[in-house]
C-alpha cells in the first residue's frame, strides 16, 4: 500500500491531499508558508480574504471534539469564500467500519469537494483518502497519535516569522513526546526544512524509544541549553490515570517552563505552545504572557496557513 507521504501527492508532485508532513518536499512546505504570508495583514483583524474557493464546498468532519481547530478551519474556508459545513460525528456512531465508509459515501453524494478530517484513530484520514472518490481532497486535522500536519506547518511559519531560516536553529520540544501527533508532525517538518538540532525532552515514560529524528533528553536544562525555540506541549490529564506520571505538580517541578528557566536557552529564544495551555503545569503564566511568548501569533498564523493549504489541495495554482 502507498505510504501516507506518497498518497498525498499528485503525479506532478503537487498536493492532492494534506495528510502528513513526513516526506513532504521542502519546496511544498516553503510554498505553503509563502502563500500563507500573503493572507496575513498588519493585525489579526486584517486577514486578507480572497474568493479562491468560491463555489467549492468544504466539510469539516470531526470524529473527535475540537472547538479550536474546527473553528480555525471554518474561518480559513470562509476567508476563501468556500461553502462550509461542520459535522461532529461521535466515534461511537461509526465504531463499525462500513458505517465510516457509508458516512463518507453519503457526504460524497452531497457534492463535497474537500473533507477536513479529525479522528481518534491513527491513519483514519489515510484510510478515507484511499476509499473516497478521486475528486475529493482530504485534509488531516489530527489523527490519533499519528499526525497534526496543519498545526506543524503553522508552527514552522511562526518560527520562520520570528527566527528566520529554520535550518540554522536549535529547537527544543518539551512534554508528552510519545503520545503527541503534534510532535510527530513538527519533527518531520523541522527535519524536512533542514533543521539539524531537534531536542525532545520529557520523562522516560513520555519519550518515544525510536522512530523520530532528534535527540532525546530526560533533563530539561540539558535539553533546552542554547535553544532558539522552545515548544511546550499540553499535558493531558489521562497521562496520570495511566501511570505514566505521578502528578502535574511533579511534572511542573521537573519540566515546567518558567521565565527563569528560559534563561538556560539562547537569548531572545521564543516560546510556543499548540494550545490550550495548562497554566502552572507545562508553562507558567508569567512566561506565557511575556514578550518571549508567540502563542497568540500561532493562533492567527494558523488561519493563514490553513487558507494556504486548503487552496493548494483544491488546485488553486495562481501565484498570489
Amino acid at each position: 500500500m502507498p505510504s501516507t507521504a506518497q498518497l498525498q501527492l499528485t503525479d506532478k508532485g503537487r498536493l492532492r491531499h494534506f495528510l502528513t508532513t513526513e516526506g513532504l518536499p521542502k519546496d511544498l512546505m516553503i510554498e505553503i508558508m509563502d502563500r500563507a504570508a500573503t493572507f496575513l495583514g498588519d493585525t489579526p483583524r486584517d486577514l486578507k480574504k480572497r474568493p479562491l474557493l468560491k463555489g467549492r464546498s468544504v466539510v469539516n468532519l470531526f470524529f473527535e471534539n475540537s472547538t479550536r481547530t474546527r473553528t480555525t478551519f471554518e474561518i480559513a474556508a470562509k476567508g476563501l469564500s468556500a461553502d462550509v459545513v461542520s459535522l461532529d460525528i461521535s466515534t461511537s456512531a461509526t465504531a463499525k467500519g462500513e458505517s465510516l465508509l457509508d458516512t463518507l459515501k453519503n457526504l460524497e453524494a452531497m457534492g463535497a469537494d474537500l473533507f477536513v478530517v479529525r479522528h481518534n484513530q491513527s491513519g483514519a484520514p489515510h484510510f478515507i483518502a484511499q476509499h473516497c472518490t478521486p475528486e475529493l481532497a482530504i485534509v488531516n486535522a489530527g489523527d490519533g497519535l499519528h499526525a497534526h500536519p496543519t498545526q506543524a506547518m503553522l508552527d514552522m511559519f511562526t518560527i520562520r516569522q520570528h527566527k528566520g531560516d529554520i535550518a540554522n536553529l536549535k529547537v527544543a520540544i518539551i512534554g508528552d513526546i510519545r503520545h503527541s501527533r503534534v510532535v510527530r508532525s513538527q519533527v518531520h517538518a523541522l527535519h524536512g526544512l533542514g533543521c539539524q538540532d531537534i531536542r525532545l525532552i520529557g520523562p522516560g515514560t513520555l519519550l518515544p524509544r525510536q522512530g523520530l529524528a532528534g535527540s532525546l533528553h530526560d533533563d530539561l536544562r540539558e535539553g533546552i541549553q542554547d535553544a532558539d525555540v522552545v515548544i511546550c506541549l499540553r499535558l493531558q490529564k489521562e497521562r496520570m490515570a495511566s501511570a505514566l506520571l505521578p502528578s502535574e505538580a511533579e511534572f511542573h517541578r521537573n519540566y515546567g517552563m518558567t521565565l527563569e528557566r528560559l534563561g538556560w536557552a539562547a537569548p531572545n529564544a521564543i516560546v510556543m505552545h499548540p494550545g490550550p495551555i495548562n497554566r502552572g503545569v507545562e508553562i507558567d503564566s508569567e512566561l506565557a504572557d511575556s514578550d518571549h511568548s508567540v502563542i497568540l501569533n500561532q493562533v492567527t498564523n494558523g488561519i493563514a496557513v490553513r487558507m494556504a493549504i486548503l487552496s493548494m489541495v483544491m488546485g488553486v495554482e495562481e501565484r498570489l
Partner: protein
Amino acid sequence: MSLASVGLIDLCCRLGETPSQTLAQAQELGYDVLTLPPYETPPENSPVRLAKLGPITQELDGEHLAEMARYQAGGVVGVTQGHAPWKNTRVQLNALRYARGQNLPVHALPLDSELGRGVAHDGEIAQRLGLETQPSAAETIALARDLQLIAETGVTAHIGRISCAESVRLIRRAKAEGLPITCDVAVTHLLWNEAKIEGYDYRYRLQPVLRSEADQMALIEGLAEGVIDAVCSDHTPHPVADKRLPFAQAAPGAETLHLLRSGLMALVDQGRLTEQQAISAVLDAPAKILKL
C-alpha cells in the same frame, strides 16, 4: 514424499462466517487435518478431518475451570485459553494441574493481556505511524510464566504462535533443560514482518503482531534448528466490514490457508529450510502434537 503433494496438518484454523466454504477451500488446497480453536461450529459432514480444542476455562473467562473431562469425552485433542486473559496465576496453575490429571494436552498462546493490547510491534514503524505498540515482552512475559507453570505441573504442553526472537531463545532453553514442550509459528510470521503495515495496511493487522525483520529471521532459524516444531496457517477469516477499517480498529487476523504450503515452498526455494524440515513442520510434528 514432496512438499508440493503432502497432505497438510494445520494446528490452527478458524472457520469464519462461512465454515463450509473454508472447509472446501482447505480440501482444495490439500489439507488433511484442521485444528479448530474452541467454539468453532463446523458443519456435520466436513470434507476435511477436524481436530478440536476445548476451552480450559468456561467460555474462556479465565476464572472458572471448564468441564474438561466432558470435552475430552466429546473428542477434543487438547484444551486452550487462546489469547483470552487469565483472571490470575492461581487459576492458571489449577487449570494446568487439572488438565494434567485428565491427561489432556494444553495449547498455550502466550500473550500478556495489557501489553498485548498494542496493535503493532514496538519499533520504528509503529512509532512513526502513531499506533499503540505491543513490545515483544507482551509475549515473553506470558511465555516465561507459562513455562514455569508447565514445569511445575508436568502437563503436556504445546506453545502456539510465537512471534519474536526472544521467545525462540526461551523455548530453546526450556527444551535444553528437558521440558517436554512443542512449539509452532504462524506462516505469516515466517513470511512477513512489520514493514508490511506501512500505509496502515489493515490486511496485516495480526495477533500477535508482525515483528521486526530480525525476529522474522530468528523464527525461520528456530524452525530450521528444530526449536520450533511446526508451522500453522492461523487462518482467520473476517467479514470485510470488520477488516476494512482504520488500522487499529481492523479485526486482527488474515485469510492464510493458501499460504502454508506456498510459503514454506518459497522458504525452501530460498534455501532457508530443507524440504524435509518443511514437511516435518506441516506433517510429522503436528501429527505427533495432535497424537494422530
